[in-house]
């Protein structure tokens, strides 16, 4: 098919000018885009108001699709369970998985208690979630891994708060608007989370790789003590996440750490709870020095270890 003849300008001055103007405006559009992109890089929170308003408008529709999605996945679970060994098989498997994680967490808690015995006067308080809500959507076409939460500042959600599913940590709040919030998932390649091994005292950073797996980077280099199957839990340093929540299971050991699988797949955890920042006062002093390495979090450095050693990023 040939292009329509009406777009050939011929000798018409007016047509020539209008085509030329189109090119100029398109080029200016590209330049504006480049300028806005540069602003977004240097000031990640610059357009959060616009994004928040946009997320608010689609949030009700997302709630509806979430309900439908959960119904469909529940149906699928039932069918697959029935086909294998009765419909309760799927449910039992789920329960077993949770029990395994809980066991690892209990180990971690026990160890944490031993450590805390040394520090008299430290009171461990029960954490009450700020809000329990649903992940209603995600940025499924982009390289970045963000999810949208069905609760926002009206429900008391604030940037920096950790988000956890029934299995373990999912991510943390990045931007908040009225009735929705943007969550940076652990799988995002800019996400860094201080963790430690549940069974012994190996401290590490869990970084998103961008392909759904986490890379565990040990802080103390030397002999790599990790083995496939090791469970990593939050260490509590940095002050955002309270210690002892399951994060990842080691899948493959590498020379400087390991490659780990997420414990809580965000797509599988339909109901998540937002918890308050664990040590808000500890954050203030720690926020300034490593601000530069953050490309997206506004004032929310996850990699800041208040007491841990500095490592080169």
């Amino acid at each position, binding site marked *: *098919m040939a*292009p329509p003849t*009406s*777009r050939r300008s011929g000798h018409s001055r007016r047509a020539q000018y209008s085509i030329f103007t*189109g*090119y100029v*405006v*398109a*080029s*200016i*559009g*590209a330049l*504006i*885009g*480049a*300028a*806005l*992109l540069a*602003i*977004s*890089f240097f000031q*990640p929170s*610059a*357009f959060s108001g*616009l*994004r928040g308003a*946009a*997320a608010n408008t*689609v949030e009700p529709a997302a709630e509806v*699709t*979430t309900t439908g*999605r959960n119904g469909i996945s529940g149906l699928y679970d039932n069918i697959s369970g029935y086909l294998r060994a009765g419909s309760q098989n799927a449910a039992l498997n789920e329960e077993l998985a949770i029990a395994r994680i809980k066991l690892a967490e209990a180990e971690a808690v026990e160890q944490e208690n031993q450590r805390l015995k040394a520090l008299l006067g430290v009171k461990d308080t029960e954490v009450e979630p700020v809000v329990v809500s649903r*992940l*209603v*959507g*995600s*940025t*499924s*076409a*982009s*390289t*970045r*891994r963000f*999810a949208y939460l069905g609760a926002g500042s009206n429900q008391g959600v604030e940037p920096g708060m950790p988000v956890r599913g029934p299995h373990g940590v*999912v991510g943390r709040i990045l931007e908040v608007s009225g009735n929705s919030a943007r969550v940076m*998932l652990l*799988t*995002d*390649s*800019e996400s860094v989370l201080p963790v430690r091994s549940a069974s012994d005292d190996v401290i590490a950073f869990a970084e998103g*790789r*961008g*392909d*759904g*797996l986490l890379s565990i980077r040990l802080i103390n280099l030397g002999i790599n003590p990790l083995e496939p199957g090791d469970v990593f839990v939050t260490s509590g340093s940095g002050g955002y996440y309270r210690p002892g929540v399951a994060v990842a299971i080691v899948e493959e050991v590498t020379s400087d750490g390991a490659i780990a699988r*997420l414990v809580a*797949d965000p*797509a599988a955890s339909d109901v998540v709870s937002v918890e308050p920042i664990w040590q808000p006062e500890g954050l203030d002093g720690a926020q300034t020095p490593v601000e530069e390495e953050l*490309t*997206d979090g506004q004032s929310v450095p996850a990699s800041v270890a208040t007491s841990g050693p500095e490592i080169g990023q």
Partner: protein
Amino acid sequence: MTERLNRVSNSSEYGRKINRESSPWRQYSVPYISVIAGSILPVFVLVGTMPIMPPLGFMILLAWRIMRPGLLPIWVGLPLGAVDDLFSGQPFGSAILLWSLAMLAIEQLEQRFPWSNFWQDWVTAAMVLAVYLLLAMFASGAVPGYFHLTVLVPQIALSILLYPIIAIVVSWLDRFRLIRTREVF
């Protein structure tokens, strides 16, 4: 094909042959609404591990641009890209830049190869999609790494395979756009 040409020539040459015209509102709003809907749609899919959804908004824009040259103005990347940036998770400005560049690039391609058929359209769309997704990765604000590239391959492949289906949907929308509903006396 002949039927469509007929419809166009009917409306211009004989005017309201059967007393009906397509509504101008619908004629001009359907492409924009469909692209915006395509930008919002991937939000409803919950994927935590890797980018798997094709960039639907961009693909619908591409299909309109390739199948109906001249319908959308060449600078349309500025407004539609801004809407896409609000939902895509990319830093604001990335789609404005890349969509504007894509419109300019397709214009150049079309001037060089003015006669087109289905296969050529598909190849054009495939090239533009692959380059777009690659550049979008660099514009995403993440430090690009090996693993980003590996997860990009399935997304690019899926997008390219999906393009003909998007093109069919856009041709349905095009037919809907031109339905003669307005009665003229």
